[in-house]
């Protein structure tokens, strides 16, 4: 009974639509396509989307966007399509004017499924090819490249003809080539030309596209695609290696920052400072506090927060370092193993103190605008924060090198490193040098903390995650020579990143550790060992 009734109703509606159709049909391709939404049938909706997209009507993008968000409504009774705009106002899809009177009572959203969502994506991609900012157009071209939707072809041709921005034009051409390659009707010559265009792109997407040419393509096309893939692989491998090298440099710079201070204290005093990681952590927390204060008092200064934090972190960690040296380390001279234990105890205390003061959770440290974002060189992505950290490491390194070579303090430090008792005999106050060295090493750790706060979680355990790697750098590079630390850090960083793709992150790390243990066999004092009698004692 119910079935009969609904069939009857359908008939009535169908008659109604037929009655209305002539008026709409004459109104143009846009209105014609729009009217197909009213049936709320997936097949009709597909045609409606493609029709609306191809119509060139300025409202097309808005309507399809509304459909994607479920804001496109239809009324079967009045045979009309509406959408709600962002202000939740009901708009007539034909005229683009707000509906003022006579809102239909049977409004229902046009339904979509997953297949339709793909159609919508492709249509939107094609629609935005010509409008908006160059970046938006680039994005749209990229979307078509991915979807390879044949319906976008006319829009692409139009867009290529109109496009003035060279970068966008290239992207559009590549997108067109991707579509043509997957188009059954296209001739072999067109397809091979398309392969040439895609090949010039030369990235992983292009390889993926060419590796999956449609199975029904001719042998010539398939061969052209395979050749193109083969020629691209070499370039890609090179870029991959460069990207790995970049990651390695980045990791190496972080390790170098963390290890330089350690190498100085170890070189001058023979003290392994197990609390070194905690000095790094103190620096990171100093950055956090500085940023919190700036946010609360003077948000305009936020861009300078790191510049303010660097000297403060140096001072905080440096003062803590000097205090530690005066209160603990100096009682343990000649007992390096004991000072190792004492500084380990200190690291427990510092960690727990920070945990008590700031909580055990990660703290949010923001990045100034000049440190966020990334840019691309060829096929590799370079983030600004990593770039700045490498630059920063080099600045710290050069400054330190200058300090050691050119200043009085540096001279005295080198003297104590080479032969403590002789230095003392020449009138150098070794106790004072020890305190200052420890302060300097800790201060540099603090600076490293500022840099690390930009790329790692600021938590009480921050230092722990770097301390073993820093030791490795010092053991590998040798003590008493800053170059050893730098070379050691970058070697380990790059070796780590090159091993990761083959062995996985953890196994790569284990391999490095084993290699270092073996390396120590050959050169027990590291790469750049100091030579001399005093060192052997």
């Amino acid at each position, binding site marked *: 009974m119910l079935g009969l009734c609904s069939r009857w109703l359908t008939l009535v509606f169908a008659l109604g639509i037929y009655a209305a159709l002539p008026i709409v049909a004459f109104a143009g391709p846009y209105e014609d396509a729009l009217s197909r939404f009213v049936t709320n049938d997936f097949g009709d909706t597909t045609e409606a989307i493609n029709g609306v997209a191809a119509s060139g009507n300025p409202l097309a993008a808005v309507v399809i966007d509304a459909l994607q968000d479920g804001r496109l409504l239809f009324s079967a009774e009045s045979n009309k399509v509406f959408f709600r705009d962002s202000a939740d106002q009901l708009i007539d899809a034909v005229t683009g004017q707000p509906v003022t009177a006579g809102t239909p009572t049977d409004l229902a959203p046009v339904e979509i499924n997953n297949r339709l969502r793909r159609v919508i994506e492709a249509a939107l991609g094609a629609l935005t090819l010509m409008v908006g900012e160059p970046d938006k157009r680039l994005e749209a071209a990229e979307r078509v490249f991915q979807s390879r939707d044949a319906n976008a072809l006319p829009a692409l041709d139009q867009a290529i003809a109109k496009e003035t921005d060279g970068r966008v034009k290239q992207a559009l051409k590549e997108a067109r080539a991707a579509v043509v390659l997957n188009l059954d009707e296209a001739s072999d010559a067109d397809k091979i030309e398309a392969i040439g265009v895609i090949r010039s792109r030369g990235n992983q997407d292009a390889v993926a596209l060419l590796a999956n040419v449609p199975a029904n393509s001719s042998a010539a096309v398939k061969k052209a695609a395979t050749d193109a893939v083969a020629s691209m692989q070499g370039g890609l491998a090179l870029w991959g290696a460069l990207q790995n090298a970049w990651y390695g440099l980045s990791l190496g710079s972080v390790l170098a920052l963390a290890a330089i201070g350690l190498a100085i204290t170890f070189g001058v005093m023979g003290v*392994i400072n197990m609390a070194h990681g905690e000095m790094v952590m103190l620096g990171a927390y100093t950055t956090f506090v500085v940023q919190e204060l700036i946010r609360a008092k003077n948000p305009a200064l936020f861009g300078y927060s790191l510049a303010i934090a660097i000297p403060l972190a140096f001072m905080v960690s440096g003062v803590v370092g000097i205090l530690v040296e005066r209160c603990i380390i100096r009682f343990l001279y000649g007992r390096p193993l004991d000072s190792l234990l004492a500084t380990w*105890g200190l690291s*427990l205390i510092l960690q727990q103190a920070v945990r008590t003061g700031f909580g055990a959770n990660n703290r949010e440290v923001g990045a100034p605008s000049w440190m966020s974002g990334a840019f691309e060189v060829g096929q590799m992505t370079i983030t600004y924060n990593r770039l700045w950290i490498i630059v920063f490491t080099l600045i710290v390194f050069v400054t330190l090198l200058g300090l050691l070579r050119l200043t009085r303090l540096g001279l005295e430090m080198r003297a104590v490193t080479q032969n403590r008792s002789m230095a003392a005999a020449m009138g150098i106050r070794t106790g004072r040098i020890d305190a200052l060295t420890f302060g300097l090493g800790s201060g540099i750790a603090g600076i490293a903390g500022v840099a690390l706060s930009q790329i790692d979680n600021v938590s009480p355990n921050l230092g722990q995650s770097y301390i073993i790697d820093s030791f490795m750098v010092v053991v590998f590079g040798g003590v008493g020579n800053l170059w050893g630390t730098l070379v050691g850090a970058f070697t380990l960083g790059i070796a780590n990143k090159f091993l990761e793709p083959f062995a996985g992150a*953890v196994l790569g790390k284990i391999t490095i550790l084993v290699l270092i243990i073996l390396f120590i066999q050959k050169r027990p004092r590291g790469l750049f060992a100091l030579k001399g009698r005093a060192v052997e004692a």
Partner: protein
Amino acid sequence: MTPFPLIRAMDRGGLAFVVLLATIAVVVPVLNLAVPPTSPFSVSTYFVSLFGKYICYALLALALDLIWGYCGILSLGHGAFFALGGYAMGMYLMRQIGTRGVYADPIRPDFMVFLNWPELPVYWYGFQHFPYALLMVVLAPGMLAFVFGWFAFRSRVTGVYLSIITQTLTFALLLGFFRNNFGFGGNNGLTDFKDILGFNVQAQGTRAALFAISTLALMTGFIICRAIVASKFGKVLIAIRDAESRTRFLGYRVESYKLCVFTLSACMAGIAGALYVPQVGIINPSEFSPANSIEAVIWVAVGGRGTLIGAALGAVLVNYAKTYFTSGVLAPYWLFMLGGLFIAVTVLLPRGIVGSVNHWMAERRARKATIGSSPAAVAAPRAAE
């Protein structure tokens, strides 16, 4: 004098310690099992398993003291040998679960079924036999220590360098054992043990027996260490600790001595780990963490390095303090205390508790010797290096 060379090697304190351990090994299980819980002399099962754990730590501390206190090798990775022994025992216990596991697989432990391993890996073969597992408890840490020590001592890696490298060793193992495809249960480690040699590991009787065995193992370990230290071999070790180059120039093969004592110490640590695992019921990769190993060093430092008895006492003392403080309102301050202990002991009490007492008694004896003879040469060992 007794005819037994081992007993002859004992001083008075050592003999007292051995007798004390033997008494504890008998009396505590008896008080736990035979005395009704209402009696004031009863010892609770909680106490038995808690102190059983401490006794295992004491054995680890003893092993560490043998190389640090008498040979100047500060290992920051002895937890690795302890954990390896523990894993060997854990593998035996896993194989004993059999069909009682969640997946009821007769051969493969639960985690292998869970990870879709088609069959038992080769290195798990044989662990269903207790004697084989016992052999591995000693062999696995021993072999690792031998290979590692052979490389390290041969190239004369000493002092802090050696400490750092041992720490790296345990760190590398930590990373490895955390991996699922390493075949040792990954993150979760080995747990859910059912029985050992047919006895339920949870049962009161088994716990008491494990306590007694651990205490006897500590006693045996102490006697062996004492015998080594008092022998000619031990004298050479002490010479290496105090002046390595000089000992080498005198014609001793320093690296062989070091390698020998290092391997022995690792085996002892492995046995300690093997006794530890059935008592706590779990072994997981966190036992490899460098912090654990370095904490074991502080037990020795607190008790007194180079005193053997002190190492064992220090382990029990520090761990009792840890249990006491971390279970109460003082829990957030425990790390402050532990950290403070590290600093205080190294700066203020470098001889440790037992070492200081020995030193004080020796001085008093020297003062009492009114005749102008030289003071008693029993001075506590100097700090390593």
